[in-house]
């Protein structure tokens, strides 16, 4: 075979090579371990939280952890690759221990998730209850998918610092929790992802808004139907070319879920999570605000009726969207998040200002924002060292990230 032909064939192979995003739900936690257990008494929960170290065993999941209760899950965030473990827990009345059944996962590792089981023995539990700030240990086992077990022990070191306890910091997860490009169990911008995001450490969500042909605001990042976000279907055009019902019937997100509407999304976030802030990243101008406004106002009313504290921000990422906002009657009453400048945020009476992270910590602007009662978020910060630096040196009220588990670790471990 001549060299030319070899080069040609190699060229064809290279041309055909590509990597596709895939979604793997991974393993589910083992509920049978929790049979015959009782709910953990509320007063135990805050005592269990804190900073942990790996005192023995394989450092596969990391060597330093923070343990935080997120609704019914006791979640651990480690210093390694954004690794997190979420446990369901039950009190075992027969031997007065706490049983934990969980799963570990990392958005940055291609490894499949694995089950983890753990126990806080009666003796260790008594240390938590009888002595304030007493160290206790959790005996854990990673259950590999081939059945082998890897034991490790977490030792509680200290409670969270007052800085952390007194903070109202927003850990904002990009695209409703995380991107399809990372190792996440659900599609980005999907209902299941919104409910899962807290397990990754988020207490706020950024979600993307597109408008269908019949003016239904839907949660979807790109302007068109494509195989990065959806299962391959016969449709390839723009989201705005199709009516919502048609999209619902014909398009599935990568993991098989439907494209959610804004209304469905807000309902599920309010009803099924403790998420405290939602940043609506509006991808289109024009009529979208007029269509979003009643949906959002209904959701705010609903949340208030349930005594649910949640802030919903209309994002203003560019001048086109700004003009659409200015065209609305009483626009200063709309809770907007302005990305343009602190001056524009003030003039729009925005509730939040969100500069790009590459602009730096912007301490002077942060002072102006605080003086005006405007929250300040930076976006989209993913590197662990940069997150740490911005937490230490910055004065932001929140950070938007693709890796909320990294941000959660760096936030909770602050002294």
């Amino acid at each position, binding site marked *: 075979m001549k060299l030319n032909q070899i*080069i040609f064939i190699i060229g064809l192979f290279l*041309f055909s090579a590509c990597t596709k995003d895939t979604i793997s739900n991974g393993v589910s936690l083992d509920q049978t371990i929790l049979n015959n257990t009782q709910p953990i008494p509320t007063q135990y929960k805050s005592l269990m939280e804190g900073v942990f170290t790996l005192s023995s065993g394989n450092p596969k999941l990391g060597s330093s952890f923070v343990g935080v209760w997120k609704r019914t899950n006791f979640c651990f965030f480690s210093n390694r690759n954004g690794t997190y473990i979420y446990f369901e827990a039950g009190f075992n009345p027969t031997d007065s221990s706490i049983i934990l059944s969980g799963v570990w996962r990392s958005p940055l590792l291609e490894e499949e998730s694995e089950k983890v089981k753990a126990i806080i023995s009666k003796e260790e539990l008594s240390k938590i209850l009888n002595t304030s700030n007493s160290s206790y240990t959790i005996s854990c086992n990673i259950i590999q998918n081939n059945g082998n077990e890897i034991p490790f022990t977490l030792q509680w070191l200290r409670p969270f610092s007052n800085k952390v306890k007194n903070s109202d910091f927003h850990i904002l997860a990009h695209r409703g929790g995380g991107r399809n490009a990372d190792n996440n169990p659900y599609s980005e911008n999907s209902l299941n992802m919104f409910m899962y995001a807290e397990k990754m450490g988020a207490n706020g969500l950024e979600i993307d808004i597109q408008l269908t042909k019949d003016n239904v605001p839907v949660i979807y990042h790109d302007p068109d139907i494509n195989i990065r976000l959806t299962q391959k*279907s016969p449709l390839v*055009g723009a989201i705005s070319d199709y009516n919502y019902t048609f999209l619902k019937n014909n398009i599935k997100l990568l993991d098989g879920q439907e494209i959610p509407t804004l209304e469905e999304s807000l309902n599920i976030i309010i009803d099924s999570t403790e998420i405290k802030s939602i940043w609506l990243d509006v991808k289109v101008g024009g009529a979208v605000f007029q269509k979003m406004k009643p949906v959002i106002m209904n959701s705010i009313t609903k949340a208030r009726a349930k005594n649910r504290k949640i802030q919903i921000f209309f994002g203003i990422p560019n001048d086109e969207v700004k003009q659409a906002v200015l065209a609305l009657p009483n626009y200063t009453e709309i809770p907007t998040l302005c990305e343009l400048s602190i001056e524009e945020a003030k003039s729009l009476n925005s509730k939040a200002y969100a500069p790009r992270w590459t602009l730096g910590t912007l301490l002077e602007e942060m002072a102006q924002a605080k003086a005006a009662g405007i929250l300040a978020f930076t976006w989209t910060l993913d590197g662990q060292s940069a997150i740490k630096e911005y937490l230490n040196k910055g004065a932001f009220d929140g950070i938007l990230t693709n890796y909320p588990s990294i941000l959660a670790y760096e936030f909770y471990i602050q002294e």
Partner: protein
Amino acid sequence: MNRFFIIIFVLLALQIQAQENSKIPFSLQAGVAPNYYFNNITTFRDQVDPINYGIQGRILWNSKYRISLGLDVSPQKMYQVNDFPQDPSDYIDLWAIPIHFFIAMKITPKLYTYGGFGPSLLINNVSNSTSSLQSNSFSVSDAQFGLGFKVLSYKKLDFSIEAKYFISTKNEDMNISFPLLVSYKF
């Protein structure tokens, strides 16, 4: 972008071997092309009809070597989908219209190979019993490769049959077609 340079490199490597050939510098080609779609659709996979057709259109400049350069615009129906379970009157098809830089090389006096690359206009036609719509989008880096055989020559006309592989990268659509072509040299 790497793919673009690889193709350019390969084509230039082929041209080094080229030898003097044609005396007639231009040709216009037209034809029809039945095609088969490699069905990788997940949603409503079973409703996809993979056998379709296209139209071929090219204008070529034939160099004094074995290489010919030109433009290929060959609309082709990639697939059609009907008999949807939720509404049997729903109908979807996708047309791709490649607008490709085209390069061909004679291997023997009758046998030639070719490749083309460039954007394609994708046209989605959607209809049901009550409405219809068309949605257009671009796939920016598509390609085609093929092998052709000149069956008959008559004065300024050549008749050829080809086997062509086409890939549209936007949504990873691929088909193979068998164009029947007539070339007019001028």
